[in-house]
């Protein structure tokens, strides 16, 4: 798998972009030239300089520092969200699809009901439920998106459980649980990796979308979506304030998408 990734330029580019985002997220305090929250009204809309590499915003805060810390905030919400989606969808879909019969039928009915509701609408309804804004966002996006991922996982499991090697596993004395954990999940794992790496880009965009609609983190938080909202009113006078966070969102989303798509090609026997 690693050899195949290293042979595919699209995968390398996506991986580098992802690693850049993670590096910025991890080393934000060392990379940021200034305190991202420090207001200096005397320096508002300052031009790019040595002290402020990308200038300042309407409150005189360092844009570069806010973008760097923004990676940390955005990813610290996006990663738990995709992890929650992954756990819920893999657990439910695998058990139901493997069990089959009435359990699977029930799962399909429940997922059809969830899928009838637009994800953004579900998320918008749930986003104000908890005191912690970040927790609200994680739970509401997970509640809105799990079903779409679970349906895909279900397809993978159904396809896998029909393969002849499952009979061999039974012949070798494997319990149903062992077949799921030791055989089915390892075999569908590359597909899950694709599903959730491309899904992460969708979550990043959704979090930013929340902020843009005023449902995200508190105004003034150094987060890419919130920065877009702040800059909304300054679109004509200072368009760069919208362009910078927009580019960051695009960069992160494109990185995960490129890597996910490349993984999909690698996992597909016709391509790989």
């Amino acid at each position, binding site marked *: 798998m690693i050899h195949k990734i290293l042979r595919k330029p699209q995968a390398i580019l996506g991986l580098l972009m992802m690693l850049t985002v993670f590096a910025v997220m991890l080393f934000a305090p060392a990379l940021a030239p200034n305190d991202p929250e420090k207001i200096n009204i005397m320096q508002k809309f300052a031009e790019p300089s040595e002290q402020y590499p990308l200038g300042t915003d309407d409150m005189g805060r360092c844009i570069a520092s806010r973008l760097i810390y923004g990676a940390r905030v955005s990813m610290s919400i996006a990663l738990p969200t995709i992890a929650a989606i992954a756990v819920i969808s893999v657990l439910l879909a695998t058990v139901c699809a493997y069990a089959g019969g009435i359990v699977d039928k029930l799962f399909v009915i429940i997922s059809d009901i969830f899928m009838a509701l637009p994800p953004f609408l579900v998320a918008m309804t749930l986003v104000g439920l908890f005191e912690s804004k970040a927790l609200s966002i994680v739970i509401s996006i997970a509640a809105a998106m799990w079903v779409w991922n679970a349906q895909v996982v279900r397809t993978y499991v159904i396809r896998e459980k029909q*393969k*002849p*090697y499952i*009979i*061999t*596993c*039974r*012949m*070798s*004395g*494997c319990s149903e649980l*062992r077949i799921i954990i030791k*055989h089915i999940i*390892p*075999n569908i794992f590359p597909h899950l990796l694709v599903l959730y790496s491309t899904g992460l880009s969708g979550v990043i965009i959704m979090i930013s979308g929340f902020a843009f609609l005023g449902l995200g983190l508190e105004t003034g938080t150094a987060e890419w979506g919130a920065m877009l909202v702040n800059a909304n009113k300054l679109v004509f006078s200072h368009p760069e304030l919208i362009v910078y966070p927009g580019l960051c969102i695009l960069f992160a989303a494109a990185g995960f998408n490129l890597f996910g798509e490349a993984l999909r090609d690698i996992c597909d026997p016709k391509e790989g």
Partner: protein
Amino acid sequence: MLKAENVMKKYGSQTAVNGVSLELEDNAVTVIVGESGSGKSTLARILSLIEKPDSGRILLGDTEADRRYAKSNRRLVQLVMQNAASSLDPHQSARQVIDEPLKLLMNLNRSQRTKRTDELCDMVQFPRDKLNNKVTELSGGQQKRLCIARAIAAEPQYIIFDEAFSGLDVTLRRCILTMLKKLRADLKTAFLIITHDLDTAMFMADRIYVMRSGNIIETLDRPHSFLDFKEDYSKELVRAAEYKRQALQ
């Protein structure tokens, strides 16, 4: 003795197995021959206790086989399927394939399993240095030998080979069949071979059942030559086999 009594299986309106009764004698090789679609593989799956018949029963000795006690049944009956590549988990190494029944069915500890794995490799002539290879990195013949090693690892009383020798070249097939003959003598395990190849049947069988459209139409005990077949359909199969041999020559 493994017995099928009036076993019937339908898929929709199609009757795959139509009230078949047969016996697998201990320590003997029984062969079921018939053309594709005659219900051989369905019968193999039913006899391996992985599929339930619509009616009829499977007896292990005097007791009816119960699918609920699947694990103990696996110590009695093992199945080797046609396509070795697809019947092995591509994620596993050859060692893991053999290790699983030794651990789960034979309850051996790690060192016992390592020792037994080596013994099994030697028995089926599987190269030990390939044990850590993924199953996808093995040749067709090695995969087949691995499937056989996995099946005998459980030390079952019966092993069912469902078209397990189809698709192998003549030399490899002869080599594996000769190895199986020796294994059967050593292990004292009964084999049921499902095949459409009469040459394989004659080479291996103590008893041959001829199957057509879900029914057993002829039974031959200790067959000596193709002339022993009496039914018209069986003779047709013999003629087809002879034609195939001539075409190959």
